[in-house]
């Protein structure tokens, strides 16, 4: 910190201004200070975000004018929920989305563990710094740019097609659901690597030595000591990989034909069927709130 030294002369010992009086008046009232600090951020969050979520919830229970497509406020109806529960398409899409989110999370965890371990415990300090930067650059690169690049890799006559041609095989094109799994795993991988790397780095060396002294082999130490200690970090990373997959509708749209929960919400959002979109939104909200509560119990919030 390079602030100039604070001396009594520099501290407004000049006229006892109104500002100074206000300052000392405020100093004696910690409760008022606290309220002043909290008013704006809590107000913003409550009105702009929680308020919006509440209005969304209301819309799920409102009827829709079948002619104009507009929502009729306070005209209560459970029609949206009935549609979702009776039409199997909505359960298929929900199961598909959650399955891909789980697969993406597992894939990213499996890819992140070796590189994060290497960064934290094998690489030299200089190498470690370089690797962190090497992981951060793809993370900061624009989301759409990365999806777009996968599109040109996967599409007909793209890199994958050309690479597979000598084997008499064809690329996946832009319709397979596996594309969504691949590209979403790619997109969120750095979000998993960074917390897991920090998790490996936090493990004190003495714990590993103690395990070895007590006769555990390397593999046993890894399984019984290292993995349980890094588990909260994996859960922290999984919040991102899981939630970001659950809410994405652009990647599934750009690289495959398979619709996700987000596509249903987006497609119905404008004046198509807002109550349906709102009712369907409650599903990912419920899943994520449950996920966050479990993650907090597992100690993941300290690793964020």
């Amino acid at each position, binding site marked *: 910190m390079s602030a100039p030294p604070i001396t009594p002369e520099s*501290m407004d010992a000049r006229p006892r201004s109104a500002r100074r009086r206000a300052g000392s008046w405020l100093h004696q009232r910690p409760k008022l200070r606290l309220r002043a600090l909290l008013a704006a*951020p809590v107000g913003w969050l409550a009105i702009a975000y929680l308020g919006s979520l509440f*209005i969304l919830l209301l819309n799920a229970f409102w009827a829709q004018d079948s002619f104009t497509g507009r929502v009729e406020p306070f005209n209560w109806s459970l029609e949206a929920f009935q549609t979702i529960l009776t039409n199997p398409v909505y359960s298929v899409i929900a199961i598909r989305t959650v399955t891909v989110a789980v697969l993406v999370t597992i894939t990213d965890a499996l890819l992140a563990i070796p590189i994060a371990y290497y960064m934290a415990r094998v690489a030299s300090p200089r190498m470690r710094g370089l690797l962190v930067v090497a992981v951060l650059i793809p993370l*900061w690169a624009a989301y759409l740019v990365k999806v777009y690049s996968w599109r040109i890799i996967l599409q007909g006559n793209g890199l994958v097609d050309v690479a597979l041609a000598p084997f008499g095989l064809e690329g996946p094109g832009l319709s397979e659901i596996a594309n969504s799994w691949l590209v979403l795993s790619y997109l969120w991988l750095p979000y998993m690597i960074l917390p897991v790397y920090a998790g490996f780095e936090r493990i004190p060396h003495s714990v590993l030595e103690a395990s*070895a002294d007590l006769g555990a082999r390397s593999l046993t130490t890894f399984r019984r000591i290292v993995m349980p200690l890094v588990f909260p970090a994996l859960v922290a990373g999984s919040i991102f990989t899981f939630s970001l997959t659950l809410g994405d509708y652009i990647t599934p749209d750009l690289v495959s034909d398979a619709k996700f929960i987000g596509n249903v*919400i987006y497609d119905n959002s404008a004046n198509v069927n807002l109550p349906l979109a709102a009712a369907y939104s409650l599903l990912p909200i419920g899943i*994520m709130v449950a996920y966050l509560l479990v993650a907090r119990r597992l100690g993941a919030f300290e690793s964020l």
Partner: protein
Amino acid sequence: MTETRLVKALLRLATAGVLAFLYLPIVVLAIYAFNSSRIQAWPPSSFTLQWFVEASNNPLIIRALTNSLIAATIATTVALVLGTLASLAVSRYDFFGRYTISFFLLLPIALPGVISGIALRTTFTTFGVDLGLMTIIIGHATFCVVVVYNNVLARLRRLPPSAEEASADLGADSFTTFRRVTMAGIGTALVSGGLLAFGLSFDEIIVTIFTAGAGTQTLPMWIYAAIQRPNELPVVNVVALVLVVISVIPVYLASRISSDVAGARQL
């Protein structure tokens, strides 16, 4: 626990493999940006700089870029103010609901983006608010607050309150202490939180589409539309490459101001 030579070699191999995976799309993009053909087949037949000229002369791109910069600047400013206020309250005071605040501030970023998007859009339309740049900024600021909050809070936890007490003992009033002691201590945390918020806003598309309305386009929205028009792809390649190159700047800045680079984009 010591890794055997074999384990180390395997780890090195896995690391190289993951890095290759992370950089494959970026390298492919860099090659296509100079592709002279309008058709995106592999490999490109010949190379040109023509598309760079076309991109820089495209008024839609310029307007979208301007919108993105305005939105990111205002959203970051709002997030810096709100995030700092909340982190000061949580770190320096003990009150009922202190732990709940972190949880609720995290919600806009932990809940899927499509939820934040449709919730905000529904609220705006319910109250008759016209969708446009203003509503985009409100949406962005909402999820940017948490990144500033987390960065500043982590710093405040490491700064002992004794420095602020000492300042008060030496006769500084609350405002002077805040300006000369607290701000000096959290300065670099504000910079890295601000960078993060700016990057997040500049890149956002999922919430933005919901809150943008018909007449306003940000740069990611322009890209999303242009990707689906084969004619525009050469120009998209150029814009994409420029964005990738630009993304090195925040990583560089973050690594300069903090020795712990990994902390820079962790929430």
